[in-house]
């Protein structure tokens, strides 16, 4: 069974299959054999097969938004979203979510001052909702700015390497 999981803005295809008493989980070519014990509805104990038999206590909270998970571990929390693409398609098919979630021309602005490290689209490109448009680095963090809607890139107003102020329009999607 393959799952579509977004973590920290990156999408992953994760396959899970039973392997006797354990599970075989593959993520982009990396395979883990995992022993799972469910402690209660939200608490999992994972032991990874390997020379170190690494053990992890994980708590999963399902947020009120469907598919949104909080994965809590000793190291902190990771926000994950299951099946974002399919969920959006289903919602659209059911007429809950319109195909164009944001009507009209949309300006994508820099949320903070920073440096443009990558421009991912060119004028005329067709883009889908949440597709990355520009990556802005600020405070040593890369922030991928995404399209709020399905549409066409009307204008790209920045180049790679440019320094931008907060609020500066980077891309226009129509």
């Amino acid at each position: 069974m393959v799952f579509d999981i977004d973590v920290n803005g990156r999408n992953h295809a994760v396959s899970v299959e039973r392997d006797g008493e354990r599970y075989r989980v593959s993520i982009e070519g990396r395979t883990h054999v995992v022993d799972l014990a469910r402690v209660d509805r939200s608490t999992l104990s994972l032991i990874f097969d390997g020379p170190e038999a690494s053990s992890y206590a994980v708590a999963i909270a399902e947020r009120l938004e469907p598919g949104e998970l909080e994965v809590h571990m000793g190291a902190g929390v990771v926000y994950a979203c299951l099946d974002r693409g399919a969920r959006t398609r289903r919602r659209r098919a059911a007429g809950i979510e319109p195909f164009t979630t944001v009507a009209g021309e949309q300006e994508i602005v820099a949320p903070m001052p920073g440096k443009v490290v990558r421009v991912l689209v060119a004028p005329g490109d067709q883009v889908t909702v949440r597709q990355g448009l520009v990556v802005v680095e600020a405070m040593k963090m890369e922030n991928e700015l995404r399209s709020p809607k399905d549409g066409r890139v009307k204008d790209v107003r920045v180049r790679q390497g440019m320094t931008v102020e907060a609020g500066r329009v980077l891309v226009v999607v129509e």
Partner: protein
Amino acid sequence: MGLRAVAVYSECDRAALHVRYADEAYAIGPSTPAESYLRIDKLVDVAKRSGADAVHPGYGFLAENEDFAAACRDAGLTFIGPSPEVIARMGSKTGARQAAIAAGVPVVPGTETPLARDVPDVEIARIADALGYPVLIKAVSGGGGKGMRVAATPEDLPGGIRAARSEATSAFGDPSIYLERRLLRPRHVEIQLLGDEHGAIVPFVERECSIQRRHQKVVEESPSVAVDGKTRAAMAEAAVAVARHVGYTNAGTIEFLLDEDGRFYFLEMNTRLQVEHPITELVTGVDLVQWQIRLAQGARLTLDPARTLAPMGHAIECRIYAEDPDNCFLPSPGRVLGLRVPAGPGIRRDDDGVTPGLDVPIYYDPLMAKLSAWGEDRPHAIARMARALGEYEVHGIKTSIPFFRWLMADASFREGRFDTTTLDALLQTRAGHPFLDISPEAEEVALVAAALHAFDRATGPRRAGDAAGESRSRWKDQARRDALR
């Protein structure tokens, strides 16, 4: 003590812990504080209706309000705290300064009388020049950093006065301000004390509260790394002198600024129990709240100052806020979906009002719990606190826990090299680098866990005899459960 507890609650607190655990609970109105928790008439009415003998004001809302204390007294109720007259006197920052001066305790150089709204800026500028810059502009009725501004130069003064006055007016209904010279790198050190109605006053070992974000305490510890036995004795003596001068009774705290040169100055007095009181209890073994009640009953203080001034070990408290440290510490109210709380040797949680299924309401302060750690010495207490923070999980809302995990590992905190300005400076140098720093390994584990969770959901509940579940021996499951504690 065999006392029964009567709780009051606003609309949004109907299912809150304090209501569930009380013997009796009474609704006092809508969630907005001004319509419920700040309504003196409603509180006194509940006290009368329920037949309560005494009122404990806690440490928020009306805890330092002389009108409330007076209303309780007029209604024949015992107010667990000092008299309304003392609250009024020490609640005015300038009144408290005058009391300290009269008691022979040094105060930070500043204005002796309030500067009312009609005092012109040029006049205030003249006072500031005489004090020397930088100056602090503070609301006379202020507290908690509200109504406070720094003027580094004369140019900053008019804007600072305007901002302080407007904040003070909206928060306290009083635009009066005063000026104080700003010490450059002071520590905030305070002395807890108890006073009985027979004239005895007992001081406690100091609390260090210099770890502040925008003038709000976030971490407190006891004892202070900057205070030696001689300074402790001098501070305790000064605190007792001020309290004695005003005839103080019940629990209170005298706050001092401790300068780099070892001199200290009276800052203000809190005429109530403080948020950070658990650390004093941890290092002295004294139950401050029980003493508050006993003192209000007229009991004599029998505590030996030699004991209350001699800390046993070291204690640290972190104020856990429903705030997102990775988004400018913005409040993060909302539904708590799950909770995993730390416990174990030396760990204590107080005033933890959070339970899964309930909301952290938008109406009140985002302080949601206090986590304290006791250790044999400071490194031991820090290690225990770091361990407890690593176990603490709050699901559904963002909290300041990741920030505290970072702070416990920070070199200047660990080495005790800080003053009241250090944390703000440290946060500035971090320049927004996330506190929630997830390693690629942890992210991989999270992905695996999320996928297994989804797999479980998709394949339905497991049957007995199934691979990874209940069929295993019970002791194995129990051991895992224990391992998760």
